[in-house]
């Protein structure tokens, strides 16, 4: 399969089941909603080192937020069911509670699995906190120096998909970056999808384990490193001199597949040799995103 002269390799992205929460952060202005969201999603690229993967899903207009103020939707994901509540409490407590004018709401109200967030953060109020039940949901009012921080008592948690990906194999680093930027722009604000890495792009794709250190769970994906072409078993065509990866997490497989289609389509530009994907032979992750199936009809 070719799209505008770019080979779509016969391979698939292998992804995993994760636990997801959707957090709605609102504030007096878009600026402060974004400030909180950026801190909330900071250092959250991969569970390998960050314990959590998070990203901004999309901006929300005032008409779509619970309190009618500007906001952002954020997805936060962990591998384990027990990890997510901890990460939500520590991150919302340190980054949203602290940020001027913000409030924090659950973005998955229909999820039957509920985890306590406001119910834990309320203790910061040192006995001065109070709660209100509005429309059947409890919200905590925590007094802070600026006024009050409002946070919903419980947040929904659902199963999601983490690790959707594709690789952009390019003739040059400039071409790889341009294609990656185009892909990210096309995928930005796709409902139900986040790109947890810097700018949505990964330059350091990893393989499972290490050749030398047994305790390492991941190390550089040498098969896709152009500088190692001569000394390792390479997966790169001769003309490829740079590779970038787009990694995406989502609330469901359909959202991932849809975003991949948009991203791959946008990445097929001049200077790109091929689009590939990372997998582990299909033995580790239950979700397989076959590139050619996803791009059917786009060639």
């Amino acid at each position: 399969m070719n799209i505008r002269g770019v080979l779509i390799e016969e391979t698939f992205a292998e992804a995993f089941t994760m636990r997801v929460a959707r957090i709605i952060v609102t504030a007096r202005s878009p600026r402060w909603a974004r400030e909180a969201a950026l801190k909330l999603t900071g250092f959250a690229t991969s569970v390998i080192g960050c314990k959590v993967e998070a990203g901004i899903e999309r901006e929300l207009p005032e008409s779509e937020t619970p309190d009618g103020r500007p906001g952002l939707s954020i997805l936060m994901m962990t591998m384990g069911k027990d990890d997510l509540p901890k990460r939500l409490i520590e991150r919302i407590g340190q980054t949203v509670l602290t940020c001027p004018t913000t409030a924090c709401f659950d973005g998955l109200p229909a999820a039957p699995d509920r985890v306590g967030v406001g119910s834990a953060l309320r203790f910061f109020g040192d006995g001065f906190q109070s709660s209100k039940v509005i429309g059947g949901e409890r919200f905590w009012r925590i007094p802070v120096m600026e006024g009050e921080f409002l946070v919903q008592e419980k947040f929904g948690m659902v199963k999601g998909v983490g690790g959707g990906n594709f690789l952009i194999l390019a003739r040059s680093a400039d071409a790889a970056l341009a294609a990656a930027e185009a892909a990210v722009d096309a995928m930005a604000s796709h409902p139900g999808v986040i790109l947890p890495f810097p700018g949505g792009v990964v330059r350091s794709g990893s393989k499972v384990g290490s050749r030398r250190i047994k305790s390492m769970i991941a190390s550089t994906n040498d098969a896709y490193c152009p500088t190692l072409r001569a000394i390792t078993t390479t997966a790169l065509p001769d003309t490829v001199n740079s590779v970038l990866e787009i990694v995406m997490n989502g609330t469901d497989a359909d959202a991932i597949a849809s975003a991949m289609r948009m991203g791959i389509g946008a990445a097929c530009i001049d200077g790109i040799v091929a689009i590939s994907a990372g997998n582990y032979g299909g033995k580790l992750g239950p979700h397989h995103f076959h590139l050619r199936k996803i791009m059917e009809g786009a060639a």
Partner: protein
Amino acid sequence: MSGLLVTLRASLEPAADCAGVLAGAWSRLVAADLARRPVALSGRGPVPLGDLCQLTGDPDGTVRFVGDWRRATRLGAGLTEGAVGIEGDVGDEVGVGMAGGSIEVRGSAGHRAGAAAPEARRGMTGGELVVHGSVGREAGALMRRGLLVAGGGVGDHAAVGMIAGTIVAFGAVGPTPGLWSKRGSVVALGEVPIPSTYRYACTYQPVHLRLMLARLKAQYGMPVEGRHLAGFYRRYSGDLAELGKGEILAWTA
């Protein structure tokens, strides 16, 4: 036709204690079963609701009361479920001691709406009591939880002995609201006299009111205006003769 419709055949004479009509589980009752619920007529004793009203419709968790219910007391007392609509005015103690569900009064309500029954230590412990008109004195007395809303004025001694919960008044609030309140909130969008046992804290924009008021507008069509959502509120803490964790939030501008 969905939901039950209870239509008074004639004006209530004498006054009728309707506490037994919606007490306990009622939302799955068919019209004939609800018609057997007792109404205590003053000086005459109990009669079945069906003797006074025509009941029609099918159960879907809602019931509407049509007619002149001004002489009906304790309608919706102890309510735990379902959505109750009263198309006009209603008498005293509507929703007294209610614990869940909702009561929407299209007209005005008498005294002690959502308050505690005489023998009880707590008023409303849950649910929503929304009155589009005014409410009489001692609304929400000993209220423990839940939401009481008045589209018009609120009589004197509202929220007396309030333990928690919220009263929202779109009109003027009468003298001495929130006396002996422990944790409750009185939200005043109109004039409100501040009792001497309340102390001014600050003027700010409580975010939770944006949610609450927006919901009242969407759910019940209450006259919430942009100035209520975006405005500032003076917060008074009280009753300082009690626990002092209650509040009066008075809209300013």
